[in-house]
Each structure stands twice: as C-alpha cells, then as structure tokens.
C-alpha cells in the first residue's frame, strides 16, 4: 500500500510535519520552497494563456487541440508537483476524467451532427442545413480543435494522477 507523504521525486526536501489532510497517498506531494511556489503560481497562468492561444489559432497556424491540451495538462501537473495538495482544491482528482469525458463526448456529437443531415462523420459542411459551407467548415474545425484540447487536457492529468498514486484511488 502506497501511503507516504514524503516527496520522493524531490527527495527529503519536505520540512516539518506533513500538514493535515496532506496524505493523498501520492508518490509526489509538495515541494516546500517559497521560490518554487511563487514561480510556479506565476508561470501557470502564462502557460495556460499560451495554451488557449495555441488551441484557438490551431486551424490556421501551427499547433492545435493536441498541443494546446498538452500545455494545459502540463500547467496543471506543474501545480501538482509544486504546491501539492493545494492543487487538488483548484483542480480536483475527478475533474481530469470529467473534462476528458466532456471533450470526447462533445467531439463525437460534433462528428455525428452532420450524419443526421445526410453527411459523413465530421463532414462539417453538412452539419447545419442552410448555412454557408465555408463558414460551417471554419467553425467545425475550430470546435473540433477545442474539444480535442479538452480531451487531451483531462486525459493527461488523469494519467498523471493515476501514475502518481500507483493506480490507487
């Protein structure tokens, strides 16, 4: 049974007694250094803004849903590593799989929207009858990128959480 609150990655830098409720049964918990906390908390919003830029400009510039989603997941994992259990209040354990489920479900619905009106899967031009096909294709690719971003974001954070606790809930 893996229930240790010591930070094994950063090895022995945890000073003082573990805070109450800090034992999440995780392999990596918290790096107790003011500099690490301040820098991590300052950098996370910038990473997230850049990730949103990459996602929302993915249909006509390098990047896209996958890359932006990886950056969003990296920002959450940075919080997990640096501030430890406080990050579970900002981004709870269940949120990872919930966001991934929302992303995949929304992507599937977007893909099947055109099937309802006689098109193929993900044939955006057929998704809404009566609208300009170019506009539909533009927004279809845009929303596909956004939903893929959600899927990758949630799934990677969920993978990290599962690995971090050794698969124990």
């Amino acid at each position: 049974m893996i229930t240790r609150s010591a930070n094994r990655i950063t090895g022995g830098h945890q000073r003082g007694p573990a805070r109450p409720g800090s034992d999440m049964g995780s392999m990596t918990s918290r790096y107790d250094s003011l500099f690490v906390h301040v820098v991590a908390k300052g950098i996370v919003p910038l990473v997230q803004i850049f990730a949103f830029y990459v996602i929302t400009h993915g249909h006509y510039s390098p990047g896209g849903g996958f890359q932006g989603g990886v950056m969003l997941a990296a920002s959450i994992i940075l919080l997990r590593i640096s501030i430890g259990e406080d990050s579970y209040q900002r981004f709870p354990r269940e949120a990872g799989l919930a966001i991934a489920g929302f992303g995949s479900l929304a992507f599937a619905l977007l893909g099947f929207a055109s099937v309802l009106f006689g098109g193929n899967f993900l044939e955006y031009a057929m998704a809404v009858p009566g609208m300009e096909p170019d506009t539909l294709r533009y927004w279809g690719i845009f929303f596909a990128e956004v939903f893929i971003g959600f899927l990758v974001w949630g799934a990677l954070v969920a993978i990290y959480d599962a690995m971090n606790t050794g698969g124990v809930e």
Partner: protein
Amino acid sequence: MIWQLDFWLMLILIAAAVTALEVRDLLAAVGVLTGYSFLMALLFAELGAPDVALTEAALGAGLTGVFLLVALAFLDRRSED
C-alpha cells in the same frame, strides 16, 4: 536552412542519445532524454516543421520527463544492468 546549426544540433543530439543510454543514474538519464527532446524540437523548427516542433517541445520536453520521473519514484535510482 543553416547547415552549421543543423550540424551542431545533430552532433549534440547524438551525444545526448548515447549519454542517455550509457549513464548509470536513471534520474540523469531522464534529464538527458528531456534535453534530447528539446534539441529535437529545435531541429524540427529549424527544418521548417513548426507543428512537429511544438508537439515535440510540449510532449517530449515537457510531459514525458514528468511521467518518467513519476515512474522513477517507484524504482531504484541506479540502473542494475
């Protein structure tokens, strides 16, 4: 394309790959592998593939290192073979 930049990046890339394979300390191997991914991203960007470079920088140099570190927390730090 700047062939001098390509040449040195390739050279450091091969050195990093050999180092990651040969080094005994697994933590150091993870670090060198992350550096390898970053050099790879630079090389991709230099070769005119910014999309691949962005993926490599985000995944290879970012998340893969963290996942390997978490896996390493379950293992001994020194390589046995």
